[in-house]
Structure formats: C-alpha cells, structure tokens
C-alpha cells in the first residue's frame, strides 16, 4: 500500500500531496511532493530536491516544513516499502 503523508487540511485543499508509492524509481530513495501535474522528488538520504524542474522554490514553505518534520518517519516508510534499497544502504560496497 502506498504511503501518503497526512497534511493539514489547508494544504490538502490547495492540492498538495506527499507520497511514497508501491512502485517508484528506486535510486536514490525519495519522497514525491505532488501538486496537479507537477511532482518534486526529495532525496531521503540527503534531504535535497532531486530535479532542476520543477523549481523547488514553487513548493510552499508549509509543505516543505511538513516533509522535513516527518523526515525519520518518511525514511522508515521507504525502508518498509523498499527493503531491498533502504535509505541507509546496507549494501557492502566492498563485497
């Protein structure tokens, strides 16, 4: 089942959604901020926005605060959905 971060009603009404779906591009682990036809991916390892477009500045500050406020929980949700590619990669690079 996908994970949707519960946002304040005012942000939901504005069409903001924050999701980790059952099938995503896997590397790196990320959370998707969705509004209408636009999506911003945020790297769950570094906290950085992953794409040049759309502009990260277009994401409402309140949405960013919700995402970073739930950071550990988002990482845990990713790990639960994608145990094969966890945020803190357990893969031994020297194997």
């Amino acid at each position, binding site marked *: 089942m996908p994970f949707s971060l519960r946002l304040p009603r005012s942000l939901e009404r504005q069409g903001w959604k924050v999701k980790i*779906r059952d099938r995503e591009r896997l590397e790196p682990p990320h959370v998707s901020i969705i509004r209408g036809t636009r*999506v911003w991916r945020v790297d769950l390892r570094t906290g950085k926005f992953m794409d040049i477009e759309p502009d990260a500045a277009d994401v409402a500050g309140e949405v960013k605060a919700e995402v970073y406020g739930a950071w550990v929980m988002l990482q845990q949700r990713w790990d639960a959905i994608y145990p094969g590619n966890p945020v803190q990669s357990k893969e031994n*690079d020297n194997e």
Partner: protein
Amino acid sequence: MSEPTLLLADGGNTAPFQPLRPRMIRSAADARTAYESEVNRHAWWVALAADGLRHLVALRPRASRAGCLLVLKPVSPQRRAFVDTLFADVLAPAEPDGFLSARELVDVFRSPNAEDLFIGGDVDLADRVVILYRGNLHRIAVPFDWFKTRRGAPKPDFKDFAITDSGQTVRLGDYEAAADAILYEFDAGARRRMNQRAIREDQSFGGALRRLRLQRGVSRTAFPGIDAKTIARIERGEVETPHEATLAVIAKLLGVEPREIATY
C-alpha cells in the same frame, strides 16, 4: 498541445474543456465540415459521451485515416468498430473510469510535460498487460509482472484500475505505481528527459549501472561468472572500460542491451 480540439459535446459538461478553446460539434453538418477541413486533419476529437458520436454517422472516411478520437465514456464494440473507420487512432477505454476526470485531462493536455503523464488506460486481463494512454495520446503497454509486490503488501488489483494524481499515478486497487517509474523503464525518450531534469551528482556509467541494477532488484552476487567485487568496482568507476563480455552478461541479466545501461 498544438492540434485543434473538436468537442462532440452532446451528453456532457463542456465547461472543463474551455481552456483548450475547442470547436463545438453539435450537428452532423458541423461534423462533416470539420472532418473535411484539411486544417483539422490531425485534430483531436473528444466525445464527452457516446451520444456525441451520432454526429459522425454521416461522415465519409478519408482515403487515409487521420486525427485522433477520444471517447470519454464506454462505447459498444460496434460503435467502436465504426469510429475506427474514420480516425487514425481511437482511445476508448472499456471501463467508465478509464480516463482522468475532464478537469485533470485538460490540465494534462496543457502541461509542458504532457507526454510524461497518463490520461487513461485499459487493462487486458487475458493478455495480462495494462495499456496506458499518455498525454500525447501515444500508448504504452506494461506487463502485469512489472507491478511487483513485496511479501505481506497488497497486491495490485487489475480489475480496479484508475489513473490518479493528474496523470502521475497508476492505481490498481490499493496499489499505486508512479508514472515516471513506468516511463523510465519503458520509454528511452522519457528516460532521457528525466535524466536531463535530474540534478545528478553521479552521471558515470557506474552510477547508471547501480540505478538500473537496484531498479531491477538484482544483487551484485547474481551475475554469473562475475565476482560481486568486480560489479562494485564498475559501479564505483574504478573500471574505466568494462570488458565487452562482462557487459554482455550484466546487460542480459538486467534485460537491456549493453549500450542501454548508460541511459539509466
């Protein structure tokens, strides 16, 4: 979208389509004039309901079919066969929820990245594929097997299909797949566009191999005849030019051509 939009308006709400500045088709005469005009040769016709299709009955098919017809509500196989004689392409999902809502549909058509969003689709239970319609009206077929599940998680319900999040998510019951994940795997052009948009610190061949390997859920130890350490060294960029035979083994297991690895 740059093509003209012609709206077969009978039986539906036209308001959401106004941003596309459509030409309204309200009679057989309107339909004939529009269909015979060269300006509309590649137009997108949108039927809000099956009722609107009756205006097409008097049309004489072109020598070579052109244009595309979207029928937003399910139609009978007979009517579908008829409109197939008139248009180069007809998108007419079998299920009532086969398309996005009208408002979201228009949002996708107006989006600069419409081709990377889905507007609707169909599920072929017999052949076990999901056929997805993109915002540029092209189709893509995704085998059921691609919608992987992990143990204990809900399985995709292929009888409960919908496109959500304004074309960014494919929903199958309680299961959701990201549109960009699908396109990244099945369309090299979309993959190129996404890679251009990405702020990527690791643009090396090794980085691409690692992304592809993880996407496929393959361990470094799974490549026959290749030591896991060798795979790790390639991914870290310590092997400048991997041997052709090594690449062939890697590519085969990952289900791509060797030259495609670098595109991931």
